[in-house]
């Protein structure tokens, strides 16, 4: 009998009294003393620590390493930059899996491939036989030189930060890697894992340091967990396991492999990019992919190429489904269970982002099944468990990972959380209620709250009143007609007044920004961006309208994690206008690099190389979470020096109201186009604008003409005429009062930031600048604590928003609050008042005190809006307007 292999942690497993088991030839812990259920629950609640050193680790180096990997793996290895990793599959020619694996690129000159322990020998033999056709490839088996640990769960980051400096950890994004040091030894860290936990880390180190890392992690609170829990966790996460969802189908005696595309992860693991070229299994996989695409569209003509797929199935009856159990649907045999058992879970109290972990446990019988491809979530099944038929149902998932810090189990009857429709009421009650509640809300917000949401403002009474007057609700579509010497032609009658208002507004915006062109029809900032992106696509294709219109080939922007506008992300307005990068097979974006010591600021020096490499056609400045001026001039100089054909856009949504000598003058600094919301630091109403300073005789002016066309008819038809009048009033106010307003906003932001810091809060940003150069202040309150703190502040009538910083994975784990001083500055608050406010905020945040009365008293002093025209000479006209409503 051959001896079992031992990992570097073998002694630790024994010391902890682990139940040991032979796994792929390795002596591994199945579970420790408290058992599988305990370890599963500990991982979901705290953090589980798994010895995964039994897995195979191959290193591939050499001039042709990439070509070799492109040949034997299904993923596009050329898309991996150093610092990135990817799930992949080692395919056979028939489109089945020899193994699934993870490819890591820690270093630029080598790749690390992690494979399943049980298949290490088979993978090695396969690779060596394929290597015969390659030269200049070095393949080594580092399994016995490198130890590997997996740390997974909501406390994983906090625990790991006790050993490794925060800045040496990978970015909070799945698949990101970093190289860290621990006790002088190199530790490779990946944000990867096999549990579905969003806070996931896998660590590689030399054996010698391994035990020390294990001990420190356990000391810091990590709970050792064995292979038993590893399996229940991955099952709950819906992740495939070789021998169950991948590889030879145990239910099929002919040894046929389960098609790779039966697994939902295949579409991420397989690449058919022409840049990848041919690879083992490509033809078979392409056929499967074709069938898969049809099946997703509910077209089953190609089902023979992908007859069954892996789907999560929940048991709704009494029983426990396990691998091999047959599955029936409407009395037809449709497949079998590939993995199944009973998994434990924690219950959550409450709904949505406020939901919290309780101490109550429960359990549920779940499984993954290989069943007919036409089945769909909601379909009722019967699982044959030892001659009894037990009811089950196809579900879309058992667990969700998109709300860090923890993975969330989703029971089959909780896929859509209960939504109670508001109770019906008789009309009089409804009307009266709507009116009274609007009054109550307005009163609360206007006279009792301190409003600090940076993207919000209150328009002046005049601006508000004008917004509801005729021609609000009417139309004034117009465009310039070349046949009339580019005169604006309005399609409807009754538009003389609004035509005049719009022209006056254009002039005021041009005056405000010091530019020649202003487009005022977009009804929001995001629509203004949509119009510009659409105009850029229109402009770049102006010579050829017959073929498929090519999208913008390369864009440089701020990543949303770093505070970039939603609008400028693939999930926002940019989505349908940016091309795919054929190399990465993702939207062709490159993010602004940021300074290590200040992730809120662009690293200008590092931009040069990125601009040269990616040659952006569009650079988008401007952020939603913004503490600094944008380096427009410096980047514009790089673009000019490299002679790039690039449009520099500044989305000034947040900072339009600050444009000027005290902040930034975008066109003077080199911006080609400015877009903005008109209702954040600018005085409102809620609309969008686009501006440019182009020479009408220049060929580039055609871009402006495209902007106008893509504004109307491109993105608006009716352009909300009421708020257009209101905006003209706001623009008059802005141009008249901006000097004092801008100076006060910027001074108040610094005062508030400094005061909050002195009250003991963690204020983000550069202390030497008093933390901010804008209207915003960012207060860090602790990982994932943002939502709860923001709620407490609201209960005290202080309105802020919870904000994810560059350190968090997403908004559900928001660790900060975002504040803005513009609105309260408009109501007349000054430095002394903001200092008093800072203390009250600290009292709530740090001492959980109730300061509602004090906040109401503070607001009472500032209930009259400033920086607007309010003399008694306007009273009669205002009265007339009121009567006209």
């Amino acid at each position, binding site marked *: 009998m051959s001896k079992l292999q031992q990992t570097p942690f073998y002694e630790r497993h024994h010391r902890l009294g682990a139940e040991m088991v032979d796994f792929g030839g390795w002596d591994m812990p199945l579970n420790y003393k408290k*058992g*599988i259920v305990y370890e599963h629950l500990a991982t979901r609640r705290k953090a589980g620590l798994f010895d995964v050193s039994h897995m195979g680790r191959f290193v591939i180096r050499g001039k042709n390493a990439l070509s070799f990997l492109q040949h034997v793996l299904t993923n596009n290895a050329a898309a991996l930059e150093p610092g990135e990793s990817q799930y992949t599959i080692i395919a056979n020619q028939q489109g089945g899996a020899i193994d699934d694996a993870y490819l890591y690129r820690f270093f630029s000159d080598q790749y690390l491939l992690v494979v399943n322990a049980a298949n290490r020998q088979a993978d090695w033999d396969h690779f060596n036989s394929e290597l015969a056709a390659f030269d200049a490839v070095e393949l080594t088996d580092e399994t016995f030189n490198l130890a590997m640990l997996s740390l997974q769960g909501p406390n994983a980051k906090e625990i790991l930060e006790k050993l490794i400096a925060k800045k040496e950890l990978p970015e909070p994004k799945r698949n990101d890697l970093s190289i860290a040091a621990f006790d002088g030894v190199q530790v490779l860290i990946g944000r990867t894992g096999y549990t579905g936990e969003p806070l996931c880390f896998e660590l590689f180190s030399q054996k010698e340091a391994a035990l020390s890392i294990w001990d420190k992690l356990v000391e810091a609170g990590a709970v050792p967990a064995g292979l*038993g829990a590893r399996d229940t966790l991955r099952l709950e996460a819906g992740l495939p396991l070789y021998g169950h969802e991948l590889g030879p189908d145990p239910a099929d005696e002919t040894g046929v492999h389960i098609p790779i595309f039966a697994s939902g992860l295949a579409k991420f693991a397989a690449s058919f990019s022409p840049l990848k070229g041919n690879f083992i299994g490509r033809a078979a996989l392409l056929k499967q992919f074709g069938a898969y695409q049809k099946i997703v569209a509910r077209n089953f003509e190609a089902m023979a190429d992908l007859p069954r797929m892996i789907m999560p199935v929940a048991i709704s009856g*009494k029983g426990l489904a*396990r691998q091999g159990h047959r599955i029936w649907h409407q009395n037809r045999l449709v497949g079998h269970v590939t993995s199944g*058992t*009973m998994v*434990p879970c924690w219950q959550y109290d409450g709904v949505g982002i406020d939901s919290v972990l309780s101490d109550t446990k429960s359990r549920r019988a779940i499984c993954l099944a290989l069943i007919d491809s036409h089945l769909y979530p909601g379909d009722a099944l019967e699982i044959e468990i*030892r001659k009894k038929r037990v009811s089950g149902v196809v579900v879309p998932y058992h667990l969700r990972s998109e709300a860090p810090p923890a993975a969330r189990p989703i029971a089959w009857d909780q896929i859509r959380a209960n939504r109670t429709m508001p109770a019906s009421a008789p009309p009089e009650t409804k009307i009266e209620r709507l009116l009274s509640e609007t009054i109550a809300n307005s009163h609360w917000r206007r006279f009792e709250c301190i409003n600090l949401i940076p993207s919000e403002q209150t328009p002046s009474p005049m601006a508000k009143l004008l917004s509801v007057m005729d021609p609000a609700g009417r139309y004034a579509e117009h465009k310039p007609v070349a046949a009339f010497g580019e005169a604006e032609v309005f399609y409807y009658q009754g538009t003389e007044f609004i035509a005049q208002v719009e022209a006056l507004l254009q002039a005021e915006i041009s005056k405000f920004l010091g530019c020649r062109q202003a487009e005022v029809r977009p009804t929001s900032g995001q629509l203004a961006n949509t119009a510009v992106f659409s105009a850029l696509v229109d402009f770049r294709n102006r010579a050829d309208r017959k073929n498929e219109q090519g999208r913008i080939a390369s864009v440089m922007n701020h990543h949303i994690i770093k505070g970039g506008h939603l609008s400028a992300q693939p999930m926002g307005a940019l989505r349908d206008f940016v091309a795919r990068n054929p190399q990465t097979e993702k939207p062709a974006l490159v993010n602004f690099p940021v300074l290590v010591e200040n992730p809120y600021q662009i690293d200008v020096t590092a931009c040069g190389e990125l601009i040269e490499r990616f040659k952006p056609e569009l650079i988008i400045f401007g952020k939603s979470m913004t503490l600094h001026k944008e380096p427009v001039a410096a980047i514009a100089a790089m673009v000019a020096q490299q002679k790039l054909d690039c449009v520099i856009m500044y989305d000034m949504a947040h900072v339009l109201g600050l444009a000027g000598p005290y902040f930034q003058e975008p066109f003077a600094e080199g911006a080609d186009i400015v877009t903005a919301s008109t209702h954040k630091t600018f005085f409102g109403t809620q609309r969008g604008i686009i501006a440019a300073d182009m020479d009408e005789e220049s060929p580039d002016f055609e871009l402006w003409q495209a902007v106008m066309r893509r504004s109307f008819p491109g993105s608006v038809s009716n352009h909300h005429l009421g708020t257009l009048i209101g905006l003209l009033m706001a623009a008059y106010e802005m141009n008249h009062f901006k000097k004092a307003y801008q100076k006060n906003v910027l001074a108040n932001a610094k005062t508030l930031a400094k005061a909050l810091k002195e009250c003991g809060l963690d204020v983000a940003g550069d202390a030497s600048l008093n933390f901010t150069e804008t209207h915003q202040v960012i207060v860090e309150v602790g990982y994932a604590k943002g939502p709860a703190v923001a709620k407490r502040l609201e209960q005290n009538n202080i309105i802020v928003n919870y904000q994810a910083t560059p350190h968090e994975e997403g908004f559900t784990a928001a660790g900060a609050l975002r504040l803005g001083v513009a609105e309260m500055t408009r109501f007349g608050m000054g430095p002394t008042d903001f200092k008093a406010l800072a203390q009250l905020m600290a009292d709530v945040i740090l001492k959980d005190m109730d300061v509602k009365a004090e906040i109401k008293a503070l607001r009472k002093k500032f209930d009259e809006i400033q920086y607007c025209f309010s003399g008694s000479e306007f009273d009669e006209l205002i009265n007339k307007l009121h009567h006209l409503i």
Partner: protein
Amino acid sequence: MKDISEMNFPENLRYSKDHEWTVMEGDTVKIGISDYAQAKLGDIVFVELPEVGDRFSKSDEFGTVESVKAVSSLYMPLGGEIVAVNDALEDTPEAINESCYDKGWIITVKPNDAAELNGLMTSADYLKQLKED
């Protein structure tokens, strides 16, 4: 798994070779699984019980006890009619791990032939058998 020396096998019970325990209660027999069995299984997550009124012979399979990783059949240590089942095990199957001789009891049987109990092992004999295996 804990060492056999740390396990508990009450002397007033009789044990089957399939690791069940039995105890006479009036004219019925209460049945469960031993400390060894629950330790070997690990966390018990599901129990399949027979219905009250079902009749079985000795050595018949009357139910199952399932852990995360395995299904374990339960065999009648003697023949008879099921007169009670521990319904609480539906919600808290872990009661078998926590209290296999008390709260973790599984069924109560009206024996066909009480003499069948004599074939079962004493605590000492059961322990001896475990050590030999």
